[in-house]
């Protein structure tokens, strides 16, 4: 490493040490615990987004070519709504939860309180970047941050980095929430949704190309459909894409850019596989200078190609055909568990099979991505798509330690609890544990020898 770089790293280490020290002191002072402080911060977030909406929109357009409507819908509006929900619900969330104790423990009481973990690290991702960042920087900064001890780490990103984060967290026994990705399949059961096919096609197109150009963890990654319907589907997708982005999507201003050259080159590599190139039925053009990839449709790229084995995270949509839509279940099961499964179907049997035979972070029937907006649903993955969840009350829980509190009474005491042990005490406790209170009374009255 060059001296300049080394000095920069040292400086960054200093900054992180200092920041962490300050944050720990702040937490220890108890200031962050009061509901008043929390509400003030949440209110400040709302104000910050409201006052800077235009600026933030501009920045998102600069970084990602995101249209302001998309920016609002997926980021700014979403953050404001989340913060508002938290603000409105906080009083309810902080209330301890009473636990009912078995009669045996009378008159003890029990409850669970949500206690803040302390100092937490949130590693945000680039595709939906508007969130609270304490320290800016790239992977080298993240490495420095990870060497410290945090009370919780929340990471959004790829499974590869997720493993590194979790291994780093293991050194300090830090609990983690990892919001990762995966290949989110979309099943189209064209038999049962034929009447609404126009909506289906529109929703899929919006879900793929209308949100950060397919660069979202819950984007449609690929479509599964019966062979007999494939060409109709493609014929329906084409005009919809044109209606969204016009004849020249590059100039439409409504299609987000690819975030970096590195990602552009990755997508380019996926598409340049000759067998994949041969499967292009729409689009395929790319412009490295403008970091632009045209909305592209593939028909049956080889299943062992790279594009069918890693998360695409871009505006390329493979359509995989099956003889029978029921085969989609086996197909999905053969791949790592995704963050979301989407299924357009009205067939109750198929719905049941999907729910009980596949595993994913979430399942949405007849729409895409909106599970993200439903605050009452936990948002998170399983297996390769992640650990833990958040949104709404789950966010509050994600950053809390659920601490059990039990209070006994010094007034009543049972001799049977204490040594020296004898048969009477043994039988007493056995009966008490079984909540066989009547027999217990008999035992105490000497009317029974107890039970085995």
């Amino acid at each position, binding site marked *: 490493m060059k001296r300049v770089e080394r000095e920069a790293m040292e400086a960054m280490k200093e900054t992180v040490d200092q920041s962490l020290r300050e944050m720990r002191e702040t937490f220890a002072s108890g200031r962050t615990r009061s509901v008043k402080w929390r509400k003030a911060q949440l209110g400040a977030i709302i104000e910050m987004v409201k006052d800077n909406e235009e600026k933030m929109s501009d920045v998102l357009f600069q970084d990602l070519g995101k249209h302001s*409507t*998309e920016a609002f819908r997926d980021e700014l509006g979403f953050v404001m709504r989340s913060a508002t929900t938290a603000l409105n619900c906080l009083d309810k969330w902080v209330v301890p939860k009473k636990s009912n104790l078995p009669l045996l423990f009378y008159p003890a009481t*029990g409850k669970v309180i949500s*206690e803040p973990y302390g100092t937490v690290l949130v590693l945000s991702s680039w595709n939906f970047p508007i969130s609270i960042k304490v320290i800016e920087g790239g992977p080298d900064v993240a490495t420095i941050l990870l060497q410290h001890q945090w009370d919780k780490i929340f990471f959004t990103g790829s499974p590869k980095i997720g493993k590194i984060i979790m291994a780093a967290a293991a050194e300090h*026994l830090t609990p983690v929430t990892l919001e990762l990705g995966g290949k989110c399949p979309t099943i189209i059961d064209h038999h049962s949704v034929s009447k609404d096919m126009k909506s289906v096609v529109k929703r899929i*197109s919006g879900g793929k190309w209308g949100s950060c150009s397919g660069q979202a963890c819950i984007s449609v990654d690929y479509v599964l459909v019966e062979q007999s319907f494939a060409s109709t589907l493609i014929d329906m997708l084409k005009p919809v894409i044109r209606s969204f982005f016009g004849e020249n999507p590059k100039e439409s201003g409504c299609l987000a850019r690819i975030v970096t050259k590195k990602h552009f080159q990755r997508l380019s590599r996926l598409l340049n596989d000759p067998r994949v190139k041969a499967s292009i039925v729409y689009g395929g053009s790319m412009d490295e200078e403008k970091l632009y990839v045209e909305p592209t449709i593939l028909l049956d790229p080889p299943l062992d190609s790279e594009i069918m084995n890693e998360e695409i995270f871009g505006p390329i949509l493979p359509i995989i055909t099956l003889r029978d839509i029921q085969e989609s279940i086996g197909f999905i099961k053969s791949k790592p568990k995704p963050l979301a499964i989407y299924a357009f179907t009205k067939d109750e049997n198929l719905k049941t099979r999907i729910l009980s035979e596949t*595993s994913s972070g979430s399942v949405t029937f007849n729409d895409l991505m909106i599970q993200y907006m439903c605050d009452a649903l936990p948002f998170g993955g399983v297996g390769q798509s992640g*650990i833990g969840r958040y949104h709404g009350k789950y966010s509050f829980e994600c950053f809390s330690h659920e601490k059990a509190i*039990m209070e006994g009474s*010094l007034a009543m005491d049972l001799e049977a609890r204490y040594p020296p042990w004898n048969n009477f005490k043994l039988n007493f406790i056995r009966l008490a544990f079984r909540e066989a209170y009547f027999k217990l009374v008999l035992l105490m009255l000497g009317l029974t020898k107890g039970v085995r």
Partner: protein
Amino acid sequence: MVKVFQAADATDLVTELRRSFDDGVTRGYEWRVTQLKKLLLICDNHEPEIVSALHDDLGKPELESSVYEVALLRNSINLAVKQLKDWMAPDKAKTSLTTFPASAEIVYEPLGVVLVISAWNYPFLLSIDPVIGAISAGNAVVLKPSELAPASSSLLAKLLEQYLDSSAVRVVEGAVTETTLLLEQKWDKIFYTGSSRIGRIIMMAAAKHLTPVVLELGGKSPVVIDSDTNLKITAKRIIAGKWGCNNGQACISPDYILTTKEFSPKVIDALKQELEAFYGKNPMESKDMSRIVNSNHFDRLSKMLEEKEVSDKIVYGGQKNRDKLKIAPTILVDVPLDSQIMSEEIFGPLLPVITLNNLEECFDVIRSRPKPLAAYLFTQNQKLKERFALTVSAGGIVVNDIAVHLAVPTLPFGGVGESGMGSYHGKFSFDAFSHKKAVLYKSFIGDAAIRYPPYSTGKLRLLKALVNSNILEIFRVILGLS
């Protein structure tokens, strides 16, 4: 001759269990309830053997085995059998205006093939209790009992094979080698009970496969004693919770006491008095206490007692017998805070009493140490109780008693920080081994054009109104009035 467990065996084992899981063996309600009831039969039919194995391994008195292992397990199984239908039912979730019209629910699904690694101090309880959770949640499970309790380990292997469905529930006996081989496999969840040191190794291995973990670890659980407490009952409960629970070798054992300089003589007298009442004048001969598990731990505890500036602080007990692996109940006063006995979890029959000028200081002492699995307070002072419960960070807090929260199925049992992550008991066990899958059902009514490109200011305004759930604004935009 016992076949040596090798890498191929680990792979084959997981492959077989995964096939059973994929075939749906473990998912139905009937299978789960049947397995749980078989566990109940084990408790009913084999209690004497269990008591005997625990006596061989730990010198555990019959009452402790019967109550803290078998009876607790029986309760846990009965609760699961009773509540399973409820637990398995999806939870309805509310939807909002932005996602209208839709309905939502949370579906509980098993994670798949899970690994439970258990500890030596409560070998039956800590093996079967997590397995109850795994089975209730519909998983296939491999149990690795602790090799430091060999009689219990082999009895567990024998009984589980005899009673449970071996296509989905298996026991692997062994030590470091076998555990390492198991950890190289990809599991859908790992549940570990043991030390923080090994907990790190487990989590690091789990990270390779992004496997979620529950780590039930330990720590130094402090007991704060206020001078307004009922000292006789306090002393009895501390003794029963410490020496009466595997002779201090328990994760939530009262580790050390914090009290004022003024009150400490009374505390120590009360402890001495009740100790004699419980265990007689010759506690080394008492059959009512477990022994130290093995010579490694005996030597570890001996070293703690022999440390300079610690050995002269013994005010009660201190006798040792290496052949019988016994150490008498021992109380020490004001050992140095940086001594070994005050730096690591004691896990034995030694009880340091640290005196403070002011009880207030207890908060700093506790906060300056890693977060423990439990923290205890004996007092009648309501304000102190509230402050303690709110500001002391520990897995769980018990006021005016010791360890009882472990037996309450409606309280989550688990640690925080160094004492662990995740929790279980009751429904929390079911949750620990489940994936809560979010399911959203949408219809095709109402496909708003505002969702799709091309974007316009009109669409943006409507979206804003929707996000703010501002009905009036929504109407105004639609009617072109805004």
